[in-house]
C-alpha cells in the first residue's frame, strides 16, 4: 500500500512545494491569531490594554490576571473566581460523557447485532434528537427536572446532557458496529457467551476509535454548552460557560479585560487538550468502516 500511495501522490517541484508550505503557514498563523492575542493580553497588566496597544507583547509580564480569574474574580455576586465553576463543569461533563457513550454503545450493539421488529424505526426516531434544536426541548426538560426534583442542580444537568447525547452516540456506534462482522457474534454465541459477555469481551475491545470519537464529540458539546447550563443550573451549580459569561458581563467596577482573557482560555483549555491528545483517533474513528482497509 505504501508503494502505491507514493506512486499516486502528485509530483511537485521544489518551488511549488515551498509555495504550498508558505500558504499553509500563513493560514495557520491567521487561525492562531485570536488565540495569540488572548494569550498575550492575559499576561499584561490592565493599564497596558487600556493604553491602546493590544497586539504588542507585554512590557511587564504578569500572571496576576490568571490568579484573579481562577480564584478571586467577581462572578455574579461572589468573589470566588472561576475555580468552583470549572469543577462544576468537570463534575457535569465526565459522568454525562461516560453515560451517554456507554448507552450509545449498547444501543448500537442492539440495533446492529440483535435486531428486532421495528429496530430501524427506533433508530430513526433516535436520530431525530440529532436534528432537534436545543430550544425546543427546554420547556419539557424543565418540567421533567422539576418532577424529578433535580432542577437547578448538577445531577439535573448531567441528565439533560446524557439524554441529549444518546442520539449522537447511538448513531456513531450503530454505524461502527454495522461494519463489525456478525459471524463473530454468532461464534461467541456458540461458544456460550451471553448478551453482556459478547458486548464486554468481543465488541468493546474492538471499539477504541469510535469510543474516542464519541468521547471527544460529547465532551466538547457538553463542556461548551451554554443554553442548558444557563437554563437549568443556577448560582453555585452553574457550569464554566455560564460563569465565564457572568465574569465578562459583570456590570460593576472596571472591565478587567486581562482577567476576561485568562478566564476564556481556562474555559477553552479542556476541549483543546482533548483534541490535541485524542484528535488523531477522531479522524481515524470517523473514517473507520467507510474504506475497507
Amino acid at each position, binding site marked *: 500500500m505504501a508503494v502505491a500511495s507514493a506512486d499516486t501522490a502528485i509530483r511537485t517541484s521544489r518551488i511549488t512545494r515551498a509555495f504550498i508550505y508558505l500558504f499553509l503557514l500563513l493560514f495557520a498563523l491567521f487561525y492562531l491569531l485570536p488565540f495569540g492575542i488572548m494569550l498575550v493580553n492575559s499576561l499584561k497588566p490592565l493599564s497596558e490594554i487600556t493604553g491602546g496597544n493590544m497586539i504588542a507583547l507585554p512590557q511587564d509580564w504578569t500572571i496576576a490576571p490568571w490568579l484573579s480569574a481562577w480564584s478571586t474574580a467577581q462572578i455574579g455576586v461572589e468573589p470566588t473566581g472561576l475555580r468552583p465553576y470549572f469543577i462544576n463543569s468537570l463534575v457535569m461533563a465526565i459522568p454525562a460523557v461516560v453515560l451517554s457513550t456507554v448507552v450509545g454503545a449498547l444501543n448500537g450493539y442492539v440495533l446492529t447485532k440483535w435486531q428486532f421488529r421495528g429496530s430501524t424505526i427506533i433508530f430513526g426516531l433516535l436520530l431525530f434528537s440529532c436534528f432537534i434544536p436545543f430550544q425546543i426541548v427546554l420547556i419539557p426538560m424543565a418540567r421533567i427536572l422539576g418532577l424529578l426534583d433535580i432542577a437547578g442542580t448538577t445531577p439535573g444537568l448531567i441528565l439533560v446532557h446524557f439524554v441529549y447525547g444518546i442520539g449522537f452516540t447511538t448513531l456513531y456506534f450503530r454505524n461502527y458496529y454495522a461494519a463489525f462482522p456478525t459471524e463473530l457474534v454468532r461464534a461467541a454465541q456458540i461458544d456460550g457467551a451471553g448478551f453482556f459477555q459478547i458486548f464486554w469481551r*468481543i465488541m468493546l475491545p474492538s471499539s477504541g476509535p469510535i469510543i474516542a470519537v464519541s468521547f471527544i464529540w460529547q465532551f466538547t458539546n457538553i463542556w461548551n454548552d451554554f443554553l442548558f447550563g444557563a437554563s437549568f443550573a443556577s448560582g453555585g451549580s452553574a457550569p464554566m460557560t455560564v460563569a465565564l459569561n457572568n465574569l465578562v458581563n459583570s456590570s460593576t467596577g472596571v472591565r478587567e479585560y486581562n482577567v476576561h482573557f485568562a478566564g476564556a482560555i481556562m474555559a477553552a483549555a479542556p476541549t483543546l487538550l482533548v483534541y490535541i491528545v485524542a484528535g488523531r483517533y477522531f479522524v481515524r474513528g470517523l473514517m473507520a468502516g467507510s474504506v475497507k482497509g
Partner: protein
Amino acid sequence: MGFLDIDNVTKSYGAVEVLHKVDIDVEEGEFLVLVGPSGCGKSTLLNMIAGLEGITSGEIRIKDRVMNGVHPSKRNIAMVFQSYALYPNMTVGQNITFGLEMHGTPKAERETAMKTVAQLLQIEHLLDRKPGQLSGGQRQRVAMGRALVRNPDVFLFDEPLSNLDAKLRVDMRIEIKKLHQRLGTTIVYVTHDQIEAMTLSTRIAVMYDGYVQQLGTPKEIYDSPANLFVATFMGSPAMNVLPVRLIERDGELHALVSAADGQERALRITHAPPAYAAYKDADVLLGIRPEAITDPEGADRNARNIQPFRNRVTVIEPAGADTFVTMTMSGKDCIARMRADADVKPGHDFDFAINMDKAVLFDPKTESRIA
C-alpha cells in the same frame, strides 16, 4: 434414529418458504456435505442445526435430544465459519479457550485442552499471537482448533475453505479429511464446491431451490444422479446431456443420436430397466459423463458395452493430465475426456468410444432419471 436427525424441517421467512421438508438422518462419525449453488438453503439449514436460526416446522435432534429452541451454546456443537470469525482482540490461545471459559471449565483443564489441540493442529508456536498476525491457512487451523477443543457432538463447517487460495484449499481439504479419519467425529459441511463435496464426504445432500434433490454416497450421486440438476451440478466438466430418441432394434433398446454431419446412429443401451419400456419410440435425454467418451485405446477395459462413434472434432483443450475434446452430438456440444497423448486434431473425424454402461436416461418433462 440417527445421531443427528433432521426431521421434516422447513424454514419460512414470512410467507416465503425457503426450505421445504428437509429430512436427513446423519449417523455417528458421518461426514455429510450439503452442496448446492448459492441461495439453495444450505447455509440456512446449517444455521438451523447450530441454533442461529429458528425452525419453522419439523424437528432437529442430536443424540435423540430435541434441539428446537435450544440455545446454540447448549447443543454441544461447534462451528467453523467462512470468515473464521476469530476474536481480533484475543490471542490465538484465548480464542481457542474462550468457549471453555464461557462454559466454566477450570483454568488448568483449559490449558491442557488447548495444548492438546494446538499440538494436533501444529499451531503451538502461534498461541501468543493475535489473529491479525496470521496467514489465511493459520487462521483456518485456529478456527478448527477452537471447534475441536470443545469436543462437541457435531462439527458444523460453513464453507471453510472458500477464502483460501487454490493450492492451500487442496492442502486444507486433505487436512480436514485426515482429521475426520483420525477423530471419527460427526461433521456437517456446507460448500458450493462439488469437488470438495465429492472428496470429503461419506454422504452428500445436493440442494437446490430449498429442496434436497438427492441424498446419497458420492458414488451414488455421481453415477446415478436423481435428476438433471444433480447430474449437471456434480462433476467437472459437467455431464453431457443429449436429446435422443429411444428405439428398439433386434429386441434391444438403442438411443438414436446424430453426428455432426447429421447422420443418425443407434447406440445400444447396456442395461434397460423395465421403466425404459414406457419410453420406447419417445424422446428422452441421454446423460453421458465426459470420461465415458474416449478414444478406443483409452476405453475402460472392464466395460461390457463400448459403442464406436465416428464424429467431427470441433475443439481440443489440452489440460495436462487429460485432453478435453468438444464435438457436436444431436445438435449439442459434447465433451469427451481423452488421455493426454490421444491423437486428436480439430476439424478432423475421429473414432470415439462411448462407454454405454455409464449412460443414464432422463425424462425430458420431469427431468428425473428414468429407472
